[in-house]
């Protein structure tokens, strides 16, 4: 069976059991979605304990509210929504750790890119750091849209569902975020092209 389809089947079964209070089934859901949720929290808050705590809080809130999940949206979209709200709330309370924007998972991945020479690898790493820093300068609402759409690859519709705003608002936020990122990254653009080529 197609692994993606298998995951979907697994998810549906696990969800049904978890909604009936089966913690072990919920554990399976955590295992299925923890990668995405942690990535989302990391992009929102920067890597570190704060992001991990936000990801954990996301799942705990999901567990407590699971009975109210009506299945109209995908579970992942619902989790993204909880995650972004948890992260936004933490940002609002000023608990964001600004100093550590570097995602260690990204560093590891870049280090593993076998086809990049040392120079390109260093450049790509530097550009990723600049990109993350620029991301950190975006306002929370723009950043959350960028994380969901441009980084996590969600559609405008899915991101709109996750953030509780219309698709058009997401489109505007993405457009505006691009404009700002271009502004923030202007001095680095030639490098960006070199690293991306």
């Amino acid at each position, binding site marked *: 069976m197609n692994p993606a389809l298998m995951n979907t089947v697994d998810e549906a079964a696990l969800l049904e059991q978890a909604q009936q209070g089966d913690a072990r089934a919920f554990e399976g859901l955590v295992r299925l979605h923890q990668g995405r949720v942690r990535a989302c929290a990391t992009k929102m808050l920067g890597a570190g304990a704060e992001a991990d705590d936000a990801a954990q809080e996301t799942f705990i809130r999901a567990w407590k509210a699971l009975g109210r999940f009506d299945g109209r949206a995908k579970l992942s979209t619902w989790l993204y929504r909880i995650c972004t709200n948890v992260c936004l709330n933490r940002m609002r309370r000023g608990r964001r750790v600004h100093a550590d924007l570097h995602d260690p998972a990204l560093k590891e991945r870049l280090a593993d890119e076998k086809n990049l020479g040392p120079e390109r690898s260093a450049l790509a790493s530097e550009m*990723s750091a600049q990109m993350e820093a620029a991301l950190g300068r975006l306002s929370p609402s723009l950043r959350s849209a960028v994380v969901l759409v*441009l980084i996590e690859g969600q559609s405008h519709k899915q991101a709109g569902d996750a953030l509780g705003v219309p698709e058009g608002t997401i489109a*505007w936020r993405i457009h505006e975020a691009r*404009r700002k990122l271009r502004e923030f990254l202007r001095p680095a653009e030639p490098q960006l092209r070199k690293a991306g080529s």
Partner: protein
Amino acid sequence: MSQDDALQRALDRGEFDEAERLAEANPALSELVDIDRGLRGLRTEGPADEGFVAGVMANLDRELEPLDEAGLAAWLKDEDGANVGAAAEAQPAEVVPLRRRFPTTLVVAAAAAIGLVATGGLFLADQAPSAEVASYEAVQDALPGAPAPTSSAAPAPPAAALEEPAPEPEEAQAASDAVYGLDFADEAEGATEASSIAQGASAAGAAENEVRRPRAEADDSLIAGLSGTPTKRSRRRARPGAATARRGAGSHGSVLAEAPREQTDERTAGDGEAATGGFGVTRGLSASAPAAPAAETQAPSTAMSAPPRDLNPQAAQTRALACVPDAVSAVRVRFRIEGDRVVRVRSTTPELGDDVERCILRVYQGAAISGTEVQLRR
């Protein structure tokens, strides 16, 4: 459409594969996709971390503070307000003349007709530079019945409207609205919209303005699910005269919820109504006009002498929903029908306030409809 526009449009629509294809075909455009490419490079999804999973499971009973959803929503609105203000400062002036020449309603409808998303009141600001609606002809192409521009030599945007120092966040939204003509009330005492546009009517002399911008507040669905619930709302801000000076020629007092072709015929300028924006938030600037009377949701009796309007239920629903704040996913509206047409509307969500009901009334007023209520749902 130029390749540049096509690429920008693909990006705006989230069609990254198409954007990449266009950039590949024309390397000169590749810088437009660099940022998207770079951001996608940040995507990570680490392997399952059993320690993390165990941590979650060990903490399932952990007590969490309830999310302050109302506070969060308000905070984000303010953040967005600041963004909007900043965007208004940065946007090119090319979108402004379009507003000046055509009633806002036409521009909105034209944008919709060619597939642009009109929401948040910002589609022109963000999409027009890269889309066909930026041309005057496009409005007429999209809406063949649209009147010609009122003047082919519309005045340039007043410098003050675009070159003003960045406004404070509290003012930013209104400043943006003013620049993009999204907050028009019937300020032109006695003047028609068309002449207001043609003359680039300056509202500088207007006295007190009241900005009405409902604020979406707490939404229980933030955590519970994805279906929005009607929210408490309608916060009013009074900012004496602040927006007026920036409105300049962009103000043309359109009534957004009116059907385009009916607008110029049906509007009665200077009637003291605050126009409401059809963008998901109510945007009204009533220049020195008295507060709208409570009975304003009652259609004028003169409307009864005209034949009932035909109404496309789907289109009407779309327009009526545009009167409702984005955070509200569904609302039930009851009609009061006299003779065979709608003369009054009442929302079953009274928190939505009179502004929204007035806006919805404009959609249905004078129409012959079946039934006495409608469920508006996004």
